[in-house]
Structure formats: structure tokens, C-alpha cells
């Protein structure tokens, strides 16, 4: 009776351990559609997140630029009166606390600015046009509502034709649009995560169905739900890791190419939209989050299904 006589040391101690690592199911990774699904999801998530981050950076840079900016316009048809009021306003502003810089935009610069629209035919008297005088004011803090009101109270008495506006105010619709796009990116990411969870759930249920008989046998031999779940988890981890890698490359390549497309649009806002190193790190973390999400979903799905078996 050699078979029974050969001792298995430690069997009694092992018997009640629930964590033996068992290769129970055929490991058919990378054959099904799962890696591809994950790759596509990850790539789309990276593009959405990259766009969202770029928009955020652009909005931040712009608002930092504009935050303390105030524009004072003197709208008057008579050039002499306009000049007088502009000088008075500049003088008043210079004496105010919280005003960091005051710069009267030269009238010739303004004319050059409007020239492409109005033209410079000989004989045109551009002076006759009611181009407002412009004063660029930089405050030491953000140009909030009360600061603007304070400025007005000071300027209007000496320059009744003055109009005082925060520069950020002009761009408010642009900021609103950027905000909406950021929400859109966030919503897309949430939907992509949801779709990933759904497809992992379906794939796990399908795999469970295919291996039901083996699972029953393993249960009968004393296998625990965790042991069985671990096999499915590991399969999903391999699939998701492969898909995540492919998705990362695809997503980053897309963002890189989009960046190259947008770069020639000019410095200003587009330059400010460039992704920083922390943004790239965040994008690189997306595949890892994706793998974690897939593995967790697989685990919970399998455990929930196993709990219904005896």
C-alpha cells in the first residue's frame, strides 16, 4: 500500500487553509475580445482625459493672465475731450491703492489694430472715427465686482465717458464653454468606465458559464470561492494588462498627434494648454486604474455568482 503509505507532510495543517493557489481552469487569455475591448476603452479614456487636462490648463493660464486685468475705455467722439478724460482717468488710477500698473494704449496702436477692418485709403481721416481711448489697468489682486465698482466710483467723476470692465468678464462665455467641455470629458470618462465594467461583467459571467462544471467539481473537492475567483481574476488581470498597454500607446500617440495639429494655431492659449509632467503621469496611471477596475469587477462578479451555488 505504498500509495497511501507515502506521507504527505503538513496535510492536516493545510487542510483548513483556504488559500491554496490552484491552476483550476484552462488559462485562455489573450484569445478572446477582452484585451481589445480594454485597449479601446483605455485609449478613449486617455484621449478624453488628455483633452480635459489641456482645457483645464488653458483656462487656468488665461484666467491667471486676466484675473487682475481691467480695461478702461473712454468712449467719446470728440478727440480732444477723449484725451482729456483719458489723462484724468490715468491720473486718478495712478493714485489708487491696489493698482499695480496703468498703461494707456497709444492711439496709433489702436488705429493700427482697427486698420485691417477700416482700411487706410488716402484722404481717410481716421481721427474722425470714434475710436475709444484704451487704458490697460493691472490690479494687484483679482478684479472682483467690488474692486470694479470702486474703480468706477473713482473714475466716472473725472471721466464721465469712461467704461470700466474686468478683462475676465469679456471672456466669460469662453470660460463657460471650456467648463462645459471639461464636464463633457469627465462624463465621457465616467461612461467609458461604466462600459468597461459592463463588458468585464459580461465576460466574467460568460467564463463562469463555460466552466460551471469544473467549478462545481472544485467546490466538491473543498475549493473555496476565493480560490476560484482568484483564477478568474488572474485571467482578467492578464487580459486587462495587455489591453491597457496597447490602449496607453494608442491614446498617447493620439494625444501627441492632436498636440502637433493644434500647435500651429498660435502661441497664446494653445501654448498654455500644453500638458505638464504631472498630467502625463496621470494619463499613464489610467491603464493601471483600468486594470484595477477590471480585476475588481471580475472578482465581485464571480464571488456574487458563486455565492448562489452550494
Amino acid at each position, binding site marked *: *500500500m*505504498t*500509495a*497511501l503509505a*507515502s506521507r*504527505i*507532510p*503538513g*496535510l492536516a495543517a*493545510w*487542510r*483548513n*487553509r*483556504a*488559500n*491554496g*493557489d*490552484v*491552476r*483550476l*481552469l*484552462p488559462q485562455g487569455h489573450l484569445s478572446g475580445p477582452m484585451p481589445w475591448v480594454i485597449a479601446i476603452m483605455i485609449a478613449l479614456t486617455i484621449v478624453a482625459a488628455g483633452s480635459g487636462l489641456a482645457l483645464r490648463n488653458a483656462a487656468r493660464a488665461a484666467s491667471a493672465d486676466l484675473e487682475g486685468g481691467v480695461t478702461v475705455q473712454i468712449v467719446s467722439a470728440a478727440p480732444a475731450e477723449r484725451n482729456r478724460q483719458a489723462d484724468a482717468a490715468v491720473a486718478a488710477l495712478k493714485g489708487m491703492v491696489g493698482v499695480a500698473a496703468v498703461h494707456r494704449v497709444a492711439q496709433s496702436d489702436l488705429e493700427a489694430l482697427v486698420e485691417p477692418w477700416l482700411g487706410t485709403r488716402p484722404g481717410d481721416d481716421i481721427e474722425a472715427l470714434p475710436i475709444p481711448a484704451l487704458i490697460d489697468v493691472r490690479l494687484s489682486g483679482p478684479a472682483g465686482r467690488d474692486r470694479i465698482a470702486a474703480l468706477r466710483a473713482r473714475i466716472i467723476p473725472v471721466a464721465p465717458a469712461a467704461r470700466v470692465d474686468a478683462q475676465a468678464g469679456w471672456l466669460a462665455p469662453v470660460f463657460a464653454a471650456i467648463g462645459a467641455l471639461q464636464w463633457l470629458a469627465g462624463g465621457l470618462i465616467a461612461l467609458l468606465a461604466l462600459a468597461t465594467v459592463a463588458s468585464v461583467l459580461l465576460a466574467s459571467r460568460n467564463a463562469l458559464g463555460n466552466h460551471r*462544471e*469544473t467549478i*462545481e*467539481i*472544485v*467546490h*466538491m*473537492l*473543498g*475549493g*473555496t*470561492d476565493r*480560490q476560484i475567483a482568484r483564477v478568474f481574476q488572474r485571467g482578467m488581470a492578464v487580459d486587462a494588462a495587455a489591453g491597457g498597454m496597447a490602449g496607453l500607446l494608442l491614446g498617447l500617440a493620439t494625444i501627441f498627434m492632436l498636440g502637433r495639429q493644434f500647435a500651429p494655431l498660435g502661441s497664446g492659449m494653445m501654448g498654455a494648454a500644453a500638458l505638464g509632467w504631472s498630467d502625463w503621469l496621470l494619463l499613464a496611471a489610467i491603464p493601471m486604474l483600468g486594470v484595477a477596475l477590471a480585476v475588481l469587477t471580475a472578482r465581485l462578479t464571480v464571488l456574487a455568482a458563486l*455565492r448562489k451555488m*452550494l
Partner: protein
Amino acid sequence: MLRRESTGPAFRLMSKPDAEIVQFDNVGLRYGTGKEVLTDISFTLYPGSFYFLTGASGAGKTSLLKLLYLSQRPSRGLIRMFGTDAITLPRERLPGFRRRIGVVFQDFRLVPHLSAFDNVALPLRVAGVSEREIARPVADMLDWVGLGDRRHARPATLSGGEQQRVAIARAVIARPDMLVADEPTGNVDPEMALKLLRLFESLNRLGTTVVVATHDLHLIRDVPESLIMRLDKGRLADPTGALRYPPRRAASPSPAEATAR
């Protein structure tokens, strides 16, 4: 018998703490909403005993064994196993119980994508035994059932008798406290049947309680000290008186039994 009727089951269970390995009390089983396939089943199995379960086809042998190896819960009645109430056993404690029971299924239930070796090794791997400690015993066991040269074969490429021997090897490899075998010799020649029976007997001598369901009367005659349970249309007959309280032959009668006698 009188005593059994006059006192509740609870009292009797408490008075014999761990003399029995299995105790059934008025157990009934129905599948779904069908009629009962097992009715009023009461018996006690004692450690180290050897039981045969006989009965016509469809009498309920497999159903009774399913209750024994915890793959089915009864519709009514009480079942105690290893000194614990098996009816209210929480799900997460089932694996620990099942690891103490070796099962030879009537339909073998080998894992189709695993080799003969891996199938036999499965109970040890599930129990977390290291690969180093698995190789020898599994190889020895396969040699012993005459499948040493077929260790890499998948179940589909094995004959019925060979599959049955793999199933038996898998059931005994972890030296269970109880072995439950459903027609374990149905597909092998008489010589191999006898050899497998000797395997069960030696396991039994090491302390394992053995329950074998079979139609084969020759087999039963080959184990003279065995006790016989007979199922007839879902009811239990007791031709050897093995199942009475106290049984005619118990491995080690407890004081409680002595007084009951």
C-alpha cells in the same frame, strides 16, 4: 428504540458528543417540487466503519450520497457531520468539511482539461499542499491504480475504467476522514474491482469511514466486516441491523451507548 422515541433528538445528540461521524434524523429529500425521493432516513455512521449502500436503480442511492458529501441540502430532517449540525452550516465552512470527505462520483466528474496527474493532485492543490509535496504521492497513487504511464492523458482519452480509477485515486489521495463512493467499480473488470476494494479497505484500516454504493453483491461479500444499508424506493431498510441505536458493531462504543444498551 423506545428511548429514541421518548427523548428528543437534541438530547440524544448531546449525550453522544463525537461518537458518530454522521447522523441522519428523519431526513427527507425532494428535488424541486417533485415527490420525495428519500423519506424518513435515520441512521448513524461510526468512525472507521465500512458501509455498503445497496438498492435498485432509482432507489435513491446517489441522492443519499449527495447529502453525505454536502452537494445537496435535505428538504427536512436533521443531519450532523463531524459533530456539527450540517443543515445550518454556513456556506463558508463547507470547504473545510468537504476537504475531509473523499468522493467517487457515479459519473466520475474529472476536470476535462486537466491531465490524470493534475486531476488526482487537485484535492491536494485545493488544500494548499506545496508542489514539492504533491509529486510523489500522486505518482505513487497513479502507479498503484495502474495508470502510471497514463499520467499525462486527458480524461477524454482514457477508457471508462481508467477514468474511474483516476476518480478513485483523486478521492483517496488526501486520505479523507470519510470516503463516499458511488458505484466505484461499475466500469472495471472483476480483478481491478477487487484491487480497488482492497484500496478502500486499507484506507478504512487507517481510520477512514467508507460508504460504497453498489449493486454488486460479490463486492459486498468480499468485505465480511462491512455493514449494509438498503434503500427501497427512498426508504431505508437495515438488513444487518447496522443502523439501529446502538449499532450491532460500533468502532468504539461510548459510555452513553453502553447505558442506552
